[in-house]
């Protein structure tokens, strides 16, 4: 199970990173959200995985590590606040700058490259 879990964390991280590296604010926000999922899962896993071990006294057979859970909770809330801010900021940037590129301007395709690919075709 741990292997699958780790694979998922890695995959989510990779997806998040890839999207964060895109040029449009929406993609970036989605990427950051994916990344924060991965982060939360990772942080949670630092307390090791346990089945049927909810950290509630008298409710389960054993008790998992409650501390990472509390940390993840804090991280989720903070992540939510940050994502919310980023989303609205993306809107604001779009409103102020007229486009949704993270750099505030749509990059002009470089002529040299165009010519090159054009030549190749």
């Amino acid at each position, binding site marked *: 199970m741990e292997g699958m879990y780790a694979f998922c964390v890695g995959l989510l991280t990779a997806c998040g990173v890839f999207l964060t590296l895109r040029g449009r604010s929406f993609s970036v926000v989605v990427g950051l959200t994916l990344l924060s999922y991965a982060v939360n899962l990772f942080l949670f896993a630092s307390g090791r995985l346990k*089945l049927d071990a909810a950290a509630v006294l008298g*409710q*389960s057979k054993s008790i998992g590590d409650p501390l990472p859970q509390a940390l993840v909770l804090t991280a989720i809330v903070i992540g939510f606040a940050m994502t919310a801010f980023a989303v609205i900021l993306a809107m604001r940037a779009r409103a102020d700058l007229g486009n949704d590129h993270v750099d505030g301007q749509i990059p002009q395709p470089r002529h040299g490259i165009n010519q090159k690919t054009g030549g190749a075709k």
Partner: protein
Amino acid sequence: MLIWTITIVAICICIALILNLWRLIQGPTISDRILALDTMYINTIALILLYGMYIGSGLYFEAALLIAMLGFVSTAALCKYLLRGDIIE
């Protein structure tokens, strides 16, 4: 017997979830995808309840309850977006 039943039902739900995912990916229309997501919420509720039964714990009921409540809101918001664009107007 119970464990076996739970396993069988769990497999049913797993298949159901995969089918939902298939529809979500397949589309073809956005409405289909929303519908698939909505169904997925319902199947998840069942899954959580089943898990609670499996380990004999009532701790997960609230999670199921929340999915029931919140899944609807998100479906409604998505549809409102498709209809009006602005969901809070």
